[in-house]
C-alpha cells in the first residue's frame, strides 16, 4: 500500500472525515458568511489553528464569495492553496557524502515517537548502503536504551549506549570520535524527550549541541524535531523553543495513521517555513514516508489522487 493510500485509508476510517465535513458545507449553497465560517471550523477541526485557517479561508472567500461553484472545484481550490503553502517545504532527508560522518539528531517532547523514528531511519539508511551508528542519548527514560537496542538488532546497526543516568553529551562526544575512526557515514542521535518549557532539560540539550559543534562546527547537519500527529497548537511553542536551543533544520511528523490529521503542519509552515521531511503512517520502517505536499493536502481534505 502506498503511503498516500495508507494516509487516505486512515483518514477515511475516521468517523467524521474532513471531506464529508467540508463537502457538506458546499453542497448546493452559495458561498456566504455561513459557508465560510463552517469552512473555517472544518479547517480548525483538522488542527490548522485559528490564524492559518483564517488566512486560507480569507483567500478562498476573495475568490469564491457569492458564487455557487461545484463542490469538486471548491475542494480542489482549497487543496491547491494548502499545497501552495506546503510545497516549498517538501525536502527529502538524505545522508550527504560531504560529511564524515553526517550527524543527524532527533529532538522533541516526550512520547512524540523519537526512538521509533530513530529506529526506522537507521533501517532506511542502512538499506541505502550507509554505515550507520545509532546513539541512545536518551539516558533518562526507563528502557529507552533497550527499545533502541531492539531496533539496532533488527537492522544490524551498531548501537552506542551508556548506562541509565549517564551524561548524554559525553556519550555523543564518544560516539562521534568512534564514528570518525570507523568511517561511519551517519550518526543518528536519539535524545531524551523533553517538554520545551523545562529549562534545565533544554539546557541539557544545548550542551549536547555544544559538544557536537566542538567536534564538528557545522553539525548537527540535520537537527530534526519529531512531532506527534495528534498534537495541537502547542507544536508552535515546541518548534520555537527547540529552534532556539537546537537550531532545528526540519520536521518529522509521526502517528498519522490514526484519526489525527496533523494540520498544525500548515500553521508551522506559515510561521517558520522549515522543511518537512517525513511523515509516519504506520508501524513499520517503510511507513515512514517522504513528505509530499500535494498528496498530504489532498488527504487532509479527504481527496484522493484519482479524484
Amino acid at each position, binding site marked *: 500500500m502506498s503511503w498516500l493510500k495508507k494516509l487516505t485509508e*486512515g483518514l477515511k*476510517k*475516521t*468517523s*467524521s472525515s474532513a471531506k464529508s465535513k467540508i463537502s457538506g458545507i458546499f453542497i448546493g449553497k452559495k458561498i456566504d458568511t455561513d459557508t465560510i465560517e463552517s469552512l473555517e*471550523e472544518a479547517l*480548525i*477541526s*483538522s*488542527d490548522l*489553528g*485559528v*490564524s492559518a485557517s483564517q488566512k486560507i479561508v480569507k483567500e478562498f472567500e476573495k475568490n469564491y464569495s457569492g458564487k455557487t461553484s461545484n463542490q469538486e472545484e471548491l475542494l480542489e481550490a482549497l487543496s491547491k492553496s494548502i499545497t501552495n503553502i506546503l510545497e516549498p517545504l517538501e525536502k527529502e532527508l538524505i545522508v550527504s557524502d560531504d560529511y564524515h560522518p553526517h550527524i543527524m539528531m532527533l529532538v522533541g*517532547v*516526550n*512520547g*512524540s*515517537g523519537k526512538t*521509533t523514528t530513530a*529506529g526506522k531511519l537507521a533501517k532506511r539508511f542502512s538499506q541505502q548502503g550507509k554505515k550507520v551508528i545509532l546513539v541512545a542519548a536518551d539516558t*533518562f*527514560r*526507563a*528502557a*529507552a*536504551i*533497550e*527499545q533502541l*537496542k*531492539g*531496533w539496532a538488532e533488527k537492522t544490524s546497526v551498531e548501537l552506542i549506549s551508556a548506562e*541509565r543516568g549517564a551524561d548524554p553529551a559525553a556519550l555523543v562526544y564518544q560516539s562521534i570520535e568512534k564514528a570518525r575512526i570507523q568511517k561511519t557515514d551517519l550518526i543518528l542521535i536519539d535524545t531524551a524527550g523533553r*517538554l*520545551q*518549557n*523545562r529549562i534545565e532539560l533544554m539546557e541539557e540539550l544545548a550542551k549536547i549541541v555544544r559538544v557536537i559543534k566542538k567536534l564538528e562546527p557545522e553539525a548537527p547537519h540535520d537537527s530534526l524535531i519529531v512531532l*506527534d*500527529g*495528534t*498534537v*495541537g*497548537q*502547542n*507544536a508552535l*511553542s515546541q518548534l520555537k523553543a527547540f529552534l532556539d536551543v537546537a537550531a532545528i533544520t526540519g520536521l518529522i511528523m509521526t*502517528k498519522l*495513521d*490514526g*484519526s*489525527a*490529521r496533523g*494540520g*498544525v503542519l500548515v500553521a508551522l509552515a506559515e510561521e517558520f517555513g522549515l522543511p518537512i521531511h517525513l511523515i509516519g503512517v504506520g*508501524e513499520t520502517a517503510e511507513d515512514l514516508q517522504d513528505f509530499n505536499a500535494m498528496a498530504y493536502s489532498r488527504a487532509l481534505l479527504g481527496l484522493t489522487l484519482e479524484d
Partner: protein
Amino acid sequence: MFDSLKDKLQSVFSGLGRTGALSETDVNNALRDVRLALLDADVAVPVVKQFMELIRERAIGAAVLKSVRPDQQVIKIVNDGLQEILGGDAEELKVDVTPPAVILMTGLQGSGKTTTAGKLAQFLKTKRKKRVMLASLDMTRPAAREQLRILSEQAEVGILPEDDKQTPLQLAKRAIKSAELQGYDVLILDTAGRQSIDDGLMEELVAIKSVSNPVETLLVADALTGQDAVNTATAFKSKIGISGIILTRLDGDARGGAALSMRQITGCPIKFAGVGEKLDALEAFDPARMASRILDMGDVVALVEKAAEAIEQEEAMRMAQRMAKGKFDLNDFLSQLRQLKKMGGVGSLLGMLPGIGKINKQLAAAGVDDSMINRQEAIILSMTKKERASVGLLNASRRKRIAFGSGTSVQEVNRLVKQYQDMARMMKKMGTKAGAAGLKAMLGSGTNSSPGVFNSSGMDLDAMSKQFGSSKSGGLSNLGGMTNLGGLPPGINPNRKK
C-alpha cells in the same frame, strides 16, 4: 495572539456604560472572542460550540457587578462554567474492593501510559497504603515491558514476570491469578498504545477488559493533544468504556483544551494530572487551575473576583457604620443571615476555625443549624418594609400574619424579635464602648486572615464558646456573637477557590 484579546474586548465595550444585567449583545460580543480563545487552546470545535450555548444561556440576564464591564462579567461566567465542567464528578479511585482491584490503563501510543502506570503504583502504595502489582500487556513496543519492570523497581512494587510467548489476553489472566495468589490489593494492567481506529487492537482491549473486570478503566491522554481529542475520547468511550481520564504532560506549556474536550465528550472525570517525569509527579487534577489555563484570562477573572470582594467589603463597612450608630434593623439582620448562608452556613463557617469542634456540638444541641437560618429568613421576608425598619410596629396580629406567611409559628416570630432586640442592644453597646474604630479593625481591610480577625476584634474563641454555651434554653439569644461572623470581611469565603 490572545494577549491582544483584552484590548479587543475593551474596544468592543468601551462604548458601553454600566449595565445592570447582561444583554444578549453583551454576551454574544464577549463570547466571540472567548470562542477564539478556546479554539486556540485546542478545545475541539464541537465542544466549543456546545460550551458556548451553555454559557450563553447562563450569561444572558446575569447581573453585572458594580465596577466591572459586561465583557469581564461574561469571562468570569465562562471561567466558572469551565471550572464546573472540568471538576464535575471527581472521585477517588475505587480500589477498596475485594482484592485484587484491577486498574486498566489505555490510550494512544506515546500518551504516557507506562510512566503513568508506574506513578499510579507509587501513589496507591504510599497514599492509599495498598500492595500493588504492575503487569505489562504490551507485546508491541520494544522494551515496553522492560520499562515497566524498571519503574516497578523504582516504586518498589510487584511486577508480573515476563513471558514472550503469551498474548496480551493470556498475560492479563495470568496477572490476575498471580495477584490473587500473592495477595496484592491492586493490579495495574498496562496495555500497548493503539490508534482508536485500529479495530483489531480495540477489540483486543475489549477482551482484556472483559476478562479482567477492572474497577477503573483509565484513558491516559496527552495534554498537548489537539482536535483529535474528540476522536480519541469518543472511540475509547464507546468501544472500551472508560471510568476516568489521566491527563499527562501538564507540566508543559500547552493550554490543554483537550482536557475540556475529553471531559465533555466522555462525561468521565479527570482523575489525575501528570506533571513531570519522576514517579511522584502525579497530582490530583485541579479544575480551577485547568480552567484558567485553558481560558488564559486569569487577570480578568481576578479583577471580577476582586470587584465582588469589594462589594462584600462595602456591605460590611456599611453594616459596621450602622452598628456603630445603633441603627441595626431587621434588614441588616437579614443581610447578616444571608451572608452567613453564603459562606456555607453555620457548620462550614465554624468548621474553618481551629478548635471549634466543641462549640459546634453545643450549637447543634441548641438547634442552631442552617434550616433555622432559612426559617428566620422567611420570617423577615414575610414582614413589610416598614416592619423591618421598626420592630415596634409588630403587634400580635401582625406577628400572626407573619407566622402564617412564613410557615412558622408565632413563638418563632417572637423568638426572632427577641433575638434581634438582644443583638441590637449589644451592637449599640459595642458601637459606643468599643467605638467604631474597633469595629472597623474587626471588619478589617479584606485580607485573608480568618483567625486574625477574631483576635483583633478582641473576641477570642473562649469567650465565644462561653457565649454559645450559655444559650441553652434561649436557643439563639446570643446569636450576636455569631452574626458577627457573618459580618466578617469577604476574605473568608469558603466557596472561593484559589
